[in-house]
Structure formats: structure tokens, C-alpha cells
């Protein structure tokens, strides 16, 4: 068919009109999406600013009280606002600077006031050092709050996007400095002098500086000796190839790292500690689709393997099963006491009971000779609901978030169809932790 000129023009005009209307529709949609996104950013920024202001106010009140009940209330307020501030900060599209010091401040400010509140509840007094720390935290809160409030003023008085607003601050800073940074970068830099805080809390800085207890008296070995240790762990006849892959530094414990292939061509990786030549972890990537072993049989293989390591007696706590493997958690026994901080993990294949992965960081970081203190007589009725049916009581050592270890009675009990593990402090009789035991087709896990 050959078109005549008039029909060609009609066709072209028609296509043009179609394209024009499609692009108008798309442009409108784009504007709507950008506006929605900008509104989300504004909301996050406003929440951040208000939460930080609330932290500032609560901290100013906290520095003058010594009353446990008030400190408790204020510490909860600070923690809740800090968590919200952290979450809002994490939503903002600030990608050209890492705000890790600002985030760290927000994590520690709540954590620290909770530590103080707990201290006063135990009738311990707030020290001079604590007061100094609080004043310092308050100083940073003031600064952070002022910066955000002034940014908010700029932001709200102009109809710009969040990213544009940040760029504006960069230009403003350029007027006064050689290299211009945006306001968040400047803020982050000012946190540079933020001191490292050491206290009993999950975010305390001392947790970064721990040493591996089990390795403390062991001798440093050579790369060659480490390779021998790796071969011997895997079983010489099972190793097809082994290659040195460098060292791990800036970490505890430092290791020599190896990879290779097993006799059945499975890839593996194994890290050996420089001190003592212990296996830190072993991982192989074999898949398994034939489940012939039962949970009990697989766990027996695991326990037999642990015995062969010559590190004393172990018992298992919980396990996970799926995808052809069983992963079990084992802790050493000091007499009858289960030492949970010294955890060892094994992944066992359900076709032949092969140990396909091994993890000993908990053990190497924490295991040592310990002297066990007297346990107070066991009277759970004081702190736990009498309706719970207790099925067993064990003695254990448990780790706390702040890095300390605590001796406790471990109770297994059932209440309203739910299974619990309750840890009761062996020195004070107070409850340390309550865990919900969840048993399903994935194994036995705790929440």
C-alpha cells in the first residue's frame, strides 16, 4: 500500500500527538513520585530534629537528679527518642558522608543513661566521672540540636528538595573555608572529638578492645605450621588442595587464612589463629539433598567430633535443621555448669554425618579456667509466676550484652502452652533473662 502525502501527514501527526500525551502523563507521574519522596524526607528530617531536641531536654533534666525513679523515666525517654532519631537519620538520603560518629553518639546516649539509671537503682552513687560524661553528652546534644534546628529553618522557608538544601549549606560553608563541606559533613567532623565511652552497656567502646582469653598463653606459630594445623583438622587424606590466602589483621584473633578443594571437589575455607594454631572457623560449600540421618544421629556425630578435639566435655543447647544440614550449638561443661559464652558451632550433613562447618570464636574469645562462686539457694517463687511448670533446673554461666559473664540457674518451664528458658542470677536470685523456646520444623530456637 502506498500512502498519499495527506495520509502520511495524518499518520505522523497522530504518532506525534500520541508521544506528546504519553510524555505529559509520565512527567506528571514523575512529579508526583518526586513529591511523595520529598515528603517522606521532610517527615524523616522533622522527626530527627524533634527527637534530638527531646534528648537534649531530657538530658538537661537528668544531670540534676539523683533519684532512681526519675533517672529511670528520663533514661527511657532518651532511649526511645534516640532510637527514633537513629531510624529517621537512616532514612535520609545522605550518601556523600558517613555519619557513623553521629549514629554512634545516638546509640550511646540512650545506652549510657540506662546504665546510670540501673546504677542508682542498685543504690550505687553517681560518680564525678559519670557527671562529667553526662555534661559532655549534653554538650553534644546541644550542638546537634542547634545545628538541626537551624537547618530546619532554612529547609522550611524554601521549597527545595532535601538534597538541594544540603547542597545550599555546602555553598554557605564555602564562603568561610577553602574546601566546602555540607552541614552534615561539618557535623560529623565536629563529633571527631567525641570521647570513647567505657561503661557497662552494649555499645560501650571497651567491647572493641577485648582479647582472646583461650589464646592468651599460647605461642605464635608460622604460616607453615598453620597450614599443617589446617590439614590435620580436615584430615590429610581428605584434602585435595590447600592455598594460602593472606592474613586477617585489625581483628581479634588474627589468623592465617586458607582455601582449597576437598577430595570430592568441594570448595572450603579455613582460618587458623596465629596464636596457638587453633581453627577459628571452617566452612565448606557442599550441598546435600539426601536426608538419611535423624536429628539424634546427626547430633551424636557432632558430639563425637567435639570429643575428638580433646577440649573436654560439651553439651548441646539448641539446634537448627534445614536444607539437608543440622546446625548445632554446643557449650563446654565446667563440672555441671554450662559455659554459654564459650560456644562452639557445628554444621553436620544429614547424609553421612560429615562436619561441613565449624565455628569456635565464642570458645576462643572466652574460654579459660574459672572459679565458680557459691550459688544462693534456689527460690524462684519470689520472681517468677507460680503457674509455670518447671521441668528442669541446670546451672550455667551466661553472657550479658555489656560483655560481662554471670552465673545463673537455668530453668526450663512451660506456661500456657509456651516453653521458656529462664535465667536466674546465682548471686542475687533476680531474673537475668527470659527466653521463649520456639520449636518448629526448622529446629529448636530461642527468641
Amino acid at each position, binding site marked *: 500500500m502506498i500512502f498519499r502525502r495527506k495520509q502520511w501527514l495524518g499518520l505522523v501527526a497522530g504518532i506525534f500527538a500520541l508521544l506528546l500525551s504519553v510524555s505529559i502523563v509520565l512527567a506528571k507521574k514523575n512529579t508526583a513520585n518526586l513529591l511523595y519522596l520529598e515528603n517522606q524526607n521532610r517527615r524523616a528530617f522533622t522527626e530527627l530534629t524533634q527527637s534530638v531536641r527531646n534528648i537534649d531536654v531530657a538530658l538537661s533534666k537528668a544531670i540534676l537528679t539523683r533519684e532512681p525513679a526519675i533517672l529511670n523515666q528520663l533514661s527511657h525517654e532518651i532511649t526511645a527518642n534516640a532510637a527514633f532519631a537513629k531510624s529517621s537519620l537512616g532514612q535520609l538520603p545522605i550518601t556523600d558522608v558517613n555519619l557513623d560518629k553521629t*549514629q554512634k553518639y545516638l*546509640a550511646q546516649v540512650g545506652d549510657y543513661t540506662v546504665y546510670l539509671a540501673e546504677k542508682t537503682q542498685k543504690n550505687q552513687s553517681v560518680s564525678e566521672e559519670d557527671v562529667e560524661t553526662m555534661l559532655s553528652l549534653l554538650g553534644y546534644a546541644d550542638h546537634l540540636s542547634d545545628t538541626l534546628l537551624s537547618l530546619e529553618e532554612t529547609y522550611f522557608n524554601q521549597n527545595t528538595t532535601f538534597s538541594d538544601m544540603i547542597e545550599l549549606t555546602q555553598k554557605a560553608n564555602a564562603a568561610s573555608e577553602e574546601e566546602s563541606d555540607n552541614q552534615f559533613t561539618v557535623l560529623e567532623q565536629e563529633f571527631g572529638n567525641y570521647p570513647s565511652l567505657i561503661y557497662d552497656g552494649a555499645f560501650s567502646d571497651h567491647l572493641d578492645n577485648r582479647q582472646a582469653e583461650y589464646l592468651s598463653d599460647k605461642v605464635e606459630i608460622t604460616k607453615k605450621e598453620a597450614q599443617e594445623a589446617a590439614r590435620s583438622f580436615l584430615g590429610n587424606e581428605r584434602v585435595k588442595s590447600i592455598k594460602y590466602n593472606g592474613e586477617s589483621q585489625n*581483628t581479634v584473633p588474627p589468623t592465617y587464612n586458607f582455601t582449597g578443594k576437598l577430595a570430592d571437589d568441594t570448595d572450603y575455607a579455613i582460618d587458623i589463629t596465629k596464636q596457638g594454631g587453633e581453627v577459628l572457623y571452617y*566452612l565448606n*560449600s557442599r*550441598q546435600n539433598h539426601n536426608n538419611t540421618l535423624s536429628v539424634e544421629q546427626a547430633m551424636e556425630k557432632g558430639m563425637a567430633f567435639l570429643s575428638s578435639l580433646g577440649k573436654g566435655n560439651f553439651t548441646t543447647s539448641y539446634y537448627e535443621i534445614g536444607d539437608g544440614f543440622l546446625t548445632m550449638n554446643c557449650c563446654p561443661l565446667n563440672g555441671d555448669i554450662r559455659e554459654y559464652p564459650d560456644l562452639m558451632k557445628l*554444621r553436620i550433613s544429614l547424609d553421612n554425618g560429615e562436619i561441613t562447618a565449624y565455628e569456635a570464636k565464642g570458645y576462643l574469645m572466652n574460654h579459660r579456667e574459672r572459679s565458680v562462686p557459691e550459688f544462693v539457694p534456689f527460690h524462684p517463687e519470689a520472681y517468677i509466676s507460680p503457674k509455670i511448670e518447671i521441668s528442669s533446673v541446670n546451672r550455667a554461666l551466661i553472657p550479658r550484652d555489656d560483655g560481662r559473664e554471670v552465673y545463673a540457674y537455668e530453668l526450663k518451664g512451660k506456661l500456657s502452652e509456651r516453653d521458656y528458658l529462664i535465667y536466674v542470677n546465682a548471686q542475687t536470685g533476680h531474673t537475668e533473662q527470659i527466653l521463649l523456646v520456639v520449636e518448629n520444623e526448622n529446629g529448636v530456637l530461642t527468641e
Partner: protein
Amino acid sequence: MNQKRMIITIVLSAFFVVGVWSVAEQKAQSANNYQTNLQLIARAVNGEARGEPYEGQVAVAAVILNRVRHPSFPNTIAGVIYQPGAFTAVADGQINVPIDPKSTIYKACTDAMNGWDPSGGAIYYFNPKTATNKWIWSRPVIKTIGNHRFAK
């Protein structure tokens, strides 16, 4: 005329079937927090470390978990993964796409969630061949696995 009507009916029923099928596919399988977290981590690791050795995939998953525990990052797995600029799978939308349920990535992420950390406690990682961010090169390096350097 009859032919035309038949074609329209076939086309419309095809749309109907596709519509129902796609809705059925979208039903998520989260029985508890664990499954949701495993899915999120697996999709993020898939976007970042698909072609890496198994140990490298476990290490990237471990970095996500290390960040959750670290004061400088959000306190939840979703918070860490959705942090703007942190993961390419989030930036390009792959994070919202289910991956093959038989993928070995799930095994790698399960190992990491069970406590294996080949990264040595790292909270950052980068590919030295492609990383343009000046700041990340200044971080103390722990070790290298495959194409990734893991750092604190």
C-alpha cells in the same frame, strides 16, 4: 465478526489468568521474623555478591549482621539494608524481587545468621577494582575474600 469476538475473549482471559497468577506469586512466606530477615539478607547478598565464592557470600551477609550490632548503624536488619546508598540491590530495586528458592545464597545467609563470620567482624566491604568512594579506602582492612576487601 465472530472471529473478532473470539480473539477479544481469548486476550481478556489471558490477562485474567496472568493477573491471578501474579497475585498468587506475590504472597510472601514470612511465618516469623526469621524468614523475613533471611529473605531480606539473601536478596541484598544476591545483589552484591552473586559471583563471589561461598565464603565471600557468607562474609557479606555477616557484614549486614555486624552492622546491626554496631552503634554506628541502624539497629535492625531492615534499617541496615534500606539505608540509602548502602546496597546496590536496594538502589536498583532487586531487593523487592524474590530469588530462586533453590539458590545457594540462602545457605550462605543461614550460616551467617547462625554465627559464622568469615569477615572477621567487618562493617564495611568494597571491591578495590570498582570502588570510587575515597573515604572507604581509608578504613583499616581486615582481609580479602574473592573480589571484596573487608574493613572496619
